[in-house]
């Protein structure tokens, strides 16, 4: 799911300047085609203004209601972005994300996990959050691998386990996820997570992070 955005960025940039393409997309979206709806929503994300934002929610909602789990994921993320951080505020988003997570979308699993791990939540909910992060990580979501590593390192929602944290950081780093590469760069520099202090390895990880970030551009 990570690749969803960058891969489409060039296409969207082209659509933004192509009124005919945009119109065609809007028509297909209106007729309820899931893929067109998601593409149109992505385009609307790049249009400024409240009208485009609310149109985007409408388009995603229709596709999500028709059963498209990827649209439900995007809808959940979009609703979260509009909320002000309150717990009640996040409920409509959570409903969509849980539906998409149950349908097997790794990003949705990760987002459900993230919501369950919010600081104000009860320990039982935090451990449910770690379980979702684990499912997302095992499904290949590199951001989930990193967040799972953080949770295991901090003992948040699970017993603290630095070795397991390191293993998940390494998996995310293998997937070139920059924050995980940076976590390893810092750990090598400071001798954390059971690693020896190794300035050269730290620089190498930082360099790989820079490459990965440049690659994502």
């Amino acid at each position: 799911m990570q690749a969803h955005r960058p891969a489409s960025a060039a296409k969207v940039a082209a659509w933004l300047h192509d009124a005919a393409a945009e119109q065609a997309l809007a028509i297909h979206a209106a007729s309820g085609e899931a893929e067109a709806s998601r593409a149109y929503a992505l385009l609307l994300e790049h249009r400024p203004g409240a009208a485009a934002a609310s149109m985007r929610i409408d388009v995603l909602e229709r596709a999500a209601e028709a059963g498209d789990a990827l649209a439900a994921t995007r809808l959940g993320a979009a609703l979260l972005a509009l909320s002000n951080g309150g717990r009640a505020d996040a409920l409509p988003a959570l409903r969509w994300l849980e539906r998409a997570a149950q349908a097997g979308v790794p990003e949705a699993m990760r987002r459900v996990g993230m919501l369950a791990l919010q600081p104000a939540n009860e320990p039982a909910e935090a451990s449910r959050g770690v379980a979702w992060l684990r499912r997302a990580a095992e499904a290949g979501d590199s951001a989930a691998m990193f967040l799972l590593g953080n949770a295991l390192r901090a003992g948040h929602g699970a017993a603290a386990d630095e070795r397991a944290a390191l293993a998940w950081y390494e998996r995310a780093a293998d997937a070139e996820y920059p924050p995980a590469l940076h976590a390893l760069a810092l750990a090598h520099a400071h001798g954390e997570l059971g690693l020896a202090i190794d300035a050269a390895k730290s620089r190498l990880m930082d360099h790989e992070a820079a490459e990965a970030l440049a690659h994502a551009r």
Partner: protein
Amino acid sequence: MQAEHQGTITYVKTPIGNSDFRLSTYFADVGDVTAIQVVNQAQAKYVKAYGAANLPQYAALPVLSVSAPFKSGFAGGGDYTDVASGPVAIFNAADLYQFANTIQAVRVNGADIKAWLESAAKRFNQIDATKTTAQALVSTFPGYNFDVLDGDANVRYEIDVTQPVGSRIRNLSYNGAPMDPAAMFIVATNNYRASGGGSFPGLDGSKTIYASPDSNRDTLIGYVKAAQSIAKSSNGSDRSWHFTRVATAGPVTFTSAPGLAALAATDGVAGVTQLQADDGSGKGLAVYQIDLGVQ
């Protein structure tokens, strides 16, 4: 190969501007912002400009910034940022910003910001003011996670090290008034922190409203180039935070490179004296005392 090497050396020596002050992290743990303020200013300015052009929905939100002293003595007395006054070159920017992170902006509320600062304040041990023996101020919490919040001279807060972790941030204010826990802000930071690095509460990647392709370091370079000259009065003396004033019965100590007590005073941190020129670690560190009663 030789030519390429030469080219790199020429590149890193490229001047980007001038500074009328020494930018260092020797006393960043006790409030010196000479090497941090300009990074925060650069990040905030960059995010503000991007937001004004591309994020009209957030136009009303104040833009703040956090940055940490990456080099804060972990490896010894040589492991500090130290940029002399005078010409500033590309390699100095690497000293000021050590890692190849990229800029990200997160949208958070005042309560999130307070929790963020509470996490950063884990940098300190809890100090018992009645204890007559020496107490070490700095904990094992890494310096790279000691985020310092700043903005446009409008942010103020205190760290009360006599309190336990989670209850140390006092008098957090924005624009002269207590920061409203429900008010929304944009905070400029890096991709590592915004994605959840350091496990700061609530930061998990979901609050990012802008993931820039540009590095924090390049942003700093751009800022200095645009300003041409940076000055202590406007880029290195706005202390957004200080310790809560408390008289302690015994000395509160920390380590830094030796012989620099006068620099702390020059940079506006009062009450710093050197106790021992060598802390015995063999890493070129001295023991200093800070009088929390004069902060």
